């Protein structure tokens, strides 16, 4: 159980408006990720949902009930923080059980729920240790365990992987995905990392400067970006944007083509250019080309290719994969 509805949420700090009217529906059991550049208001929005910040106006409904005047502990939510935020004076077991203890649950129930969560996360041997005696990954698992034990309607994650190193990040990401499948719980997750967003989410909410730019499944956003911002934000390397005038196209002001939708050929093609730099990644080869017609473009080729700087190449975009944007940045159908 756990659906979430946001109705026209606005939030200002003094004269600065951080959230400019956010509407959102999250269905029961969905994994929704808020993603956007830093300062776009995604963390503030999460805090409003948690009740740690009051919205200046607008409504938050959890399971159809308005919770604007309900304190965080009574909203039926659990939150995992970027900095883990474990209680330093309690061991892992008590860290996980504190919320239930505060709610006055019987000791047996707390014990049973902590045991279930610790088994799920493989924390059994660390239960008697204090946060100071745990590694970063273990601490984050205890923090996730603390959220599971509360058996919440809504899980809130605030950049939970940002403090972990790259290898641990991939592992913990898989663990969170597994957790979502096992618990079938509703999860809201904030990150600035589009890889996390693409790999974990059922639906992604792209925020920019306090507004929702687009909501959709990862493949929706990749294949059908609504505007320039989304097109540039999703996908790595970034989409190439070319002024339509340069190419003599009409009916659009900017054309976009993803680096992976460009093919190159040493003999012939649409855009003649010179290689500026080559990145060999093994699985991919990334080419930076200075073309006469289209300017600086990036191309992503699969597999290994032996090109060197100053080589002359012809790049050809896949016609059906070219995106067209009008002068306001909206996609032209």
């Amino acid at each position, binding site marked *: 159980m756990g659906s979430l509805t946001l109705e026209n949420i606005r939030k200002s700090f003094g004269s600065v408006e951080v959230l400019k009217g956010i509407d959102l529906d999250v269905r029961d059991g969905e994994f929704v990720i808020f993603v956007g550049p830093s300062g776009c208001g995604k963390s503030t929005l999460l805090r409003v949902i948690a009740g740690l910040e009051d919205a200046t106006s607008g409504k938050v409904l959890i399971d159809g009930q308005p919770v604007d005047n309900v304190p965080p*502990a009574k909203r039926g939510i659990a939150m995992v923080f*970027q900095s883990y935020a474990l209680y330093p004076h309690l061991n892992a077991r008590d860290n996980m059980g504190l919320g239930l203890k505060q709610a006055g649950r019987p000791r047996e129930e707390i014990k049973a729920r902590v045991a279930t969560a610790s088994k799920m996360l493989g924390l059994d041997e660390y239960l008697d240790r204090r946060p100071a005696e745990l590694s970063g990954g273990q601490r984050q698992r205890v923090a996730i365990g603390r959220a599971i034990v509360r058996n919440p309607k809504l899980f809130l994650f605030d950049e939970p992987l940002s403090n972990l190193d790259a290898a641990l990040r991939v592992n913990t990401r898989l663990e969170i995905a597994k957790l979502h499948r096992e618990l079938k719980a509703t999860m809201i997750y904030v990150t600035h990392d589009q890889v996390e967003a693409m790999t974990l989410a059922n639906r992604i909410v792209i925020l920019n400067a306090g507004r929702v730019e687009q909501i959709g499944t990862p493949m929706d956003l990749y294949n059908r970006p609504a505007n320039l911002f989304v097109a540039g934000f999703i996908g790595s390397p970034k989409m190439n944007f070319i002024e339509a005038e340069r190419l003599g196209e009409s009916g659009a002001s900017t054309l976009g083509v993803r680096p992976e939708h460009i093919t190159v050929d040493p003999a012939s093609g649409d855009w003649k250019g010179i290689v500026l730099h080559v990145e060999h990644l093994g699985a991919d080869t990334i080419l930076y080309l200075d073309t006469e017609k289209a300017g600086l473009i990036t191309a992503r080729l699969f597999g290994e290719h032996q090109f060197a700087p100053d080589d002359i190449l012809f790049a050809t975009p896949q016609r059906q994969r070219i995106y067209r944007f009008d002068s306001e940045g909206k996609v032209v159908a």
Partner: protein
Amino acid sequence: MSKARHSPWRSVAAHAALITYTAIALFPVIVIIINSFKTRQAIFRSPLAFPDEKSFSLIGYQTVLAQGDFFLYFQNSLIVTVASLFFVLLFGAMAAFALAEYRFRGNTLMGLYLALGIMIPIRLGTVAILQLMVASGLVNTLTALILVYTAQGLPLAVFILSEFMKQVSDDLKNAGRIDGLSEYRIFFRLVLPLVRPAMATVAVFTMIPIWNDLWFPLILAPAESTKTITLGAQIFLGQFVTNWNAVLAALSLAILPVLILYLIFSRQLIRGITAGAVK
């Protein structure tokens, strides 16, 4: 880089500077203590000499313990210092938490207003304080001293502690709120233990002026039953004759309790129990 830091010359120079400073700071204390164990003639003949068989004498301590009610004075000083310290730390930390944690209208102004007390010496208000104490019937009570010292210590405590409390992780406090801890529990169980080193610093800075103060005990509580140790020691200082043995013995004894309190707090200064709580 690390080579330069471990060079023996630098370490010798640093130690020389520190040892010189320690010697300067300890010199008066040592002179007081060694002279308190000497006869009167020996004090004046060679004030820097250590007591030997001929000059050794406990006459000062005997006078102090026989005359006046020194245990009572000690007790008064301790009650006043510990009670004031307790209230300064409690109210100072609470005010600092409010200033650091909550957004409300006039937050900055309130912080400045509370810090103003650091710049204005409380002794300027002695006459008004005395009138206040007379009017409320608190003259010659320890309560009067505790109230004044609490007021005296609060500005610095609020100032230092609010800076430290701003550094306590917001995530930790928010985690507590989501787990249903009350603001009081968050304050006492999560935030206070994390600012313990700052509390110890404030405690040391607050404690020593209170213990050493002569001004307010003399004005507000000069009665025999409420004398503090510094005021009590003055009975041996006469206009024409001063009983140096007794004065030095009384001062030596007065160092002890504050030294013990300092040792308790300095352990907290060093201890870093909070490592690993966040990040």
